[in-house]
């Protein structure tokens, strides 16, 4: 099939999914909660003002992996489980489209929604630029990392939501999985791990940490866009989406 048809189908599905978000007040509630939390963490817990630095790394971006842990599964939990619950999956997958177009279309819609949520944090950028001479390259890198991180979480949520017709189960599974992937590279955890394994086997700790969202996100947070980290996140998005396809296929094969 030619690719423009595929892109059109993906866009049609994304559009439907996006309008689905805004058809109910849930999307707006989600955005407000996200912005409130980001604001609270940045200015209260993050100590943005006390730090006296024109930087967002430690005050703003630092919290994203933890906030996303709950917000991204909440945004993505309906992707496939709702489709299964309503029975519309039968309708969607008997249309002349491939399963991949549906998976990608749905994923992109949620990702765009999260992108919008991220964009709405722009006042933080204005603030830091107004108050000091900020390194906007580092700020940009932080946003790129945050966006990719959200994509990674979201792909996992897409996978868990294909597993069940119950959104709550999809949410919980996704939070747990993302939490593990996050902790694997979280410093207190890696420190704990290194005390367990003998010095010689330290590479094991590094290996575990290298699978973590946290390790790779940290570079973006510091202002470094490394192609290795980008590739990591792209594969962290690609693999769960592939598994989503496998799950849907098994589901249909019975």
């Amino acid at each position, binding site marked *: *099939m030619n690719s423009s048809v595929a892109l059109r189908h993906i866009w049609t599905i994304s559009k439907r999914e996006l309008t689905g978000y805004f058809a109910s007040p849930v999307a707006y509630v989600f955005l407000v909660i996200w912005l409130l939390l980001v604001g609270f963490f940045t200015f209260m817990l993050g100590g943005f003002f006390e730090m006296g630095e024109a930087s967002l790394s430690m005050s703003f971006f630092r919290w994203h992996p933890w906030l996303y842990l709950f917000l991204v599964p909440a945004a993505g939990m309906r992707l496939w489980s709702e489709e299964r619950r309503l*029975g*519309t999956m*039968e*309708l969607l997958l*008997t249309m002349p489209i491939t399963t991949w177009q549906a998976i990608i279309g749905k994923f992109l819609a949620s990702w765009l929604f999260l992108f919008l949520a991220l964009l709405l944090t722009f006042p933080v950028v204005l603030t830091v630029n107004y108050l000091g001479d900020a390194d906007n390259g580092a700020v940009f890198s932080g946003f790129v990392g945050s966006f990719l991180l959200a994509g990674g979480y979201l792909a996992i949520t897409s996978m868990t939501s294909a597993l069940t017709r119950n959104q709550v189960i999809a949410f919980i599974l996704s939070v747990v999985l993302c939490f593990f992937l996050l902790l694997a590279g979280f410093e207190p955890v890696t420190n704990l791990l290194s005390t367990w394994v003998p010095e010689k086997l330290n590479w094991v700790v590094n290996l575990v940490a290298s699978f973590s969202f946290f390790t790779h996100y940290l570079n973006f947070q510091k202002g470094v866009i490394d192609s290795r980290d980008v590739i990591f996140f792209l594969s962290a998005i690609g693999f769960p989406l592939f598994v989503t396809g496998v799950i849907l296929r098994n589901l*249909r094969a*019975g």
Partner: protein
Amino acid sequence: MIKVENLVKTFGTKRAVSGISFSVERGEVLGFLGPNGAGKSTSMRMITGFIPPTEGRITVGGFDMVENPIPAKKLIGYLPENAPAYTDMTVFGFLGFAAELRGFYGDARNKAVHRAVEQCFLEGVLHQSVDTLSKGFRHRLCFAQSILHDPEVLIMDEPTDGLDPNQKHEMRQLIRRMGEKKAIVFSTHILEEVEAACTRAIIIDRGQIVANGTPDELKQRSDLAGSVSVRVLGVPADIIKAKLALVPSSRKAAIIKEGKDGVWARVYPQAHARNGEFARAVAEAVTRESWKFDELHTEEGRLDEVFRSITWSETAKENK
């Protein structure tokens, strides 16, 4: 248009469909009959490409559903069981979405949507949310979705389920009308529907085809088919029964009902007896006895009886 060969589907150890084959041409309306859990929905899901068959081949318009699903799916309009629809969309939005997936954009999309809306009488709810639709409207909406692209093949899983009698009637007529130009398969367990709308019916039970023919052919298989019922006044029932049993080429006679308004008796013909002749023979016997009678007719055979006898005996066999 549709060709199904030796279709098998197993779920774990359960064999939902075991080896069904049939074909449907343009201009045919095929009714899919069977008790609940006979494998009707599973078969339809395989034909529409929702679930892959364990064995067997499905071709739609010459395209293999497993190897080449996209062009095959393009030819099909599908109304799944329970008429699912996205509840967070409006009627217009939902149809527009379906139209785009079917390859209609811009003006062509709006045209296709409006045509389907007109055919299914959805104008009144066009901008209403799917959430708020009554079951009848939901059904019509999902049906509208399936005919958006004027498909050559229409597959419907219980299209009249949950509709009121008027809507059922409308739907049957619609099916009949569309069946002139399309290949239609629909499942139902309402037998009048088969007589009203189908050119051919298939009865499946436990995943296998147990009968395949026109509704009239199927009715012929009924025990009742060709029997003659007569209402006689003022004669004791046992005498009627005894005398009627003597009618040439009759197999047996039975009393159906006794009441103040006479006795209903029925005479069953032997297999070789011809309809008109047998009825005349019964009439002659009655007049010879000079009984008063005010009604005499040949029974047509009833589909529900055929359905019951076929699907029951199959079940009984299996239980032995």
